[in-house]
């Protein structure tokens, strides 16, 4: 087994693009679930709308990066409004069922050949990042960063991704410590108490849903800009469930939690993948094939999620008192 390679691949995930993308999606969920108590099981749809919105605006409307970026954000904000108006007045599990149903319906719609003029059907969309990469100040070449060697494009997308994570994290710290954020926490703890203080609970929940959804759409844009391909099959419900795992791993009602959770989660995935593959290659696991290693990884994700929620629902950084799943 090549331990040096295992180490560099695993450490590379620490600042990988997918790590940043999932961190953004999980930060959005932290807004929804951690700070407001909204059970959003359709984060994949928010991310997908960001990704498709960006790609559609670039490819079909021929907008530049800023316009496409804004279009992706608007798409997910509109989706949040449509989801929220009927469901935010209802019990929490209705939002869960409606968001997961809507996300799945969108997933079917993105993949069908019917709307291929906009979505590319099952092939998806590609080559929409030209303008994004034209802002890259780093000269062409391959750079040895100690642990990993990256091209100028890979470095640029990482800088933007982690820059966004930092901006969002700071924004959320400020927001959650503001009176507005305290009202949200109040809603999470006891909706009726907040209502009796004269606050319009519905409006606060809606603001949280839109803001968290927009943050999720940033994650979706980053996710597809790294490879400049966007396929419907990315946005399955497993995407949402992995985001939940990332969130709960770090701690739902924290800002640092989703970021560290994402890094740990992807390093864990890469470590299990490379170690298991190494073991299969040297013949130590005769009952497994290389293709099955990827499957074992996802099995472990499910197991991880179960154990986490049962034994440590507050995650790494959460406060157990603050992390009471109501209901």
């Amino acid at each position, binding site marked *: 087994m090549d331990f040096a390679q295992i180490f560099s691949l695993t450490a590379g995930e620490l600042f990988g693009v*997918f790590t940043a993308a999932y961190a953004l999606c999980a930060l959005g969920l932290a807004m929804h679930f951690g700070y407001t108590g909204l*059970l959003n099981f359709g984060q994949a749809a928010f991310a997908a709308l960001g990704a498709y919105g960006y790609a559609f605006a670039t490819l079909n409307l021929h907008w530049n990066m800023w316009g496409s970026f804004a279009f992706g954000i608007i798409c997910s904000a509109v989706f949040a409004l449509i989801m929220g108006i*009927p*469901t935010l007045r*209802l*019990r*929490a*599990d*209705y939002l*869960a*069922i*409606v968001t*997961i*149903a*809507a996300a*799945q*319906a969108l997933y*079917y719609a993105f*993949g*069908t*050949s*019917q709307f291929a003029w906009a979505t590319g*059907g099952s*092939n998806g969309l*590609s080559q929409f990042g030209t303008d994004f990469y034209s802002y890259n100040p780093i000269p062409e070449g391959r750079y040895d960063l100690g642990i990993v060697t990256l091209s100028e494009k890979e470095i640029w997308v990482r800088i933007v991704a982690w820059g966004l994570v930092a901006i969002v994290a700071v924004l959320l710290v400020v927001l959650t410590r503001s009176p507005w954020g305290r009202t949200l926490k109040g809603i999470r703890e006891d909706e009726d108490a907040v209502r009796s203080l004269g606050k319009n609970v519905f409006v606060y929940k809606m603001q949280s849903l839109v803001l968290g959804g927009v943050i999720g759409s940033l994650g979706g844009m980053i996710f597809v800009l790294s*490879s400049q*391909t966007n*396929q419907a*099959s*990315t946005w*399955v419900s*497993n*995407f949402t*469930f*992995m985001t*939940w795992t990332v969130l*709960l791993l770090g701690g739902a009602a924290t800002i640092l939690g989703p970021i560290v959770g994402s890094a740990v989660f992807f390093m864990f995935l890469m470590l299990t993948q490379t170690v298991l593959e190494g073991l299969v290659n040297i013949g130590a696991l*005769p*009952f497994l*094939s290389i*293709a*099955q290693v*990827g*499957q*074992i990884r*996802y*099995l472990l994700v*499910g*197991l991880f*999620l*179960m154990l*986490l*929620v*049962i034994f440590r*629902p507050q995650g790494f950084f959460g406060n*157990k008192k603050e992390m*009471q*799943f*109501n*209901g």
Partner: protein
Amino acid sequence: MSRPTTPLGRGWAFMLAAIALAAGLLTVSAPANAAAPAHTAAAVHNHQISAASDPSTWAYSIAGALKLNGKPVAGVTITATLGSFSAKGTSDATGRWNIAVPDAGKYTVTIDQSTLPKGYAVVNPTMTADLTQFSFAPVLFKFGGQVIQTESFGSQLISRVFSGLNFGLLLALAAIGISLIFGTTGLSNFAHGEMVTIGALMMWLLHASMGWPIILAAIAAILITSAFGWAQDAWLWKPLRKRRMGLNQMMIVSIGFSIVMRYVYLLLFNGDTKDIAGGATSVKIGSIDTTNITLWGMGIAAVALVGVALFLTRTRIGKATRAVSDNAPLASATGIDVERIIRIVWIAAAALTGLAGVLYGLEFQANWLTGFDLLLLLFAAVTLGGLGTAFGATVGALIIGMVVEVSNLFIPNELRYAAALVILIVILIVRPQGVLGKKQRLG
């Protein structure tokens, strides 16, 4: 949250042992494992096509033959695309067609329906050709399914309503399971679809693979599913209830459990779609084209549903179940053993869901994702009918089954599940308690 006092360790040891056992079984049941279609969230394929080169030198090819009732079909246009690359081919007098492509990759192969003989259609006009491992990929377009233009709208509608009734009955069996569990324990069980899958896969293993007679295999598959339901409750959900875990938290545990089970199925049974009923004979009733197995399945499902209704309204245990659903503490105070009722509900719900899986597998096909694909339709059915009422779940399932099949007349096949989910969202906006639900169940 109260501190955990009950030993959860033993249950977990069982679960882990079961998974380890499952992994060990791989050596027996899956010696040569083909690359299964990994359902990964992070799967991103990067296609690069060297399109400038000369087509006659291209080393990869996609080919097939078109036959309709045994006769070759000539002059049909077929297109293979990958990213921005696309190439066309036309079927010759022997019905054969061949498209050369430059590079490896997963190509989308589309048949031009307008070039087919008048009045006929293929089941799936868009297929995938996987050229990632081999340089040649066969693609077979099957004629059939919906025949365009030859049938009147009325007879198509009758045939769709019949399919909808059949699908609705299947969904109802599993939806009642979700509904009973939700009613008695409050759990929105996201791992419920996995019980459909286990029913169908056991049917494949015992009937199609090991050759047991169909009735015996079906009974065994249902027994295995109920044992799975019982074990789930005893080792996972009961300890969690004892810990007084919140319902939302339990829901997330069920999501994790669903992921674990799906990948266990994938490891044990591979990712291919299993054809379970080989010897179904076709039956024609008026304009409805069906099979003997479907008719039997509908009859059995209807009898089972009536049985559930009688059980819930006429027997002591059934009445106790409804009492626990209405108010568990009060039921407990009147001397009903709530834990025993929940145990019975889990076993019965699993048996019904297993039956749904068996019938679904026999009438359609099954793979490791079958139950998960149906899960949201089941939730839609339960929510539509009104959360926690068995009768509501049946009505909701019949509505969802109808919507899925009848919508097929107006919208493309891939979007029919989406139609059902959109109906769910619309109904929740108009009537949040569901068609038959009571307002008090709302928060």
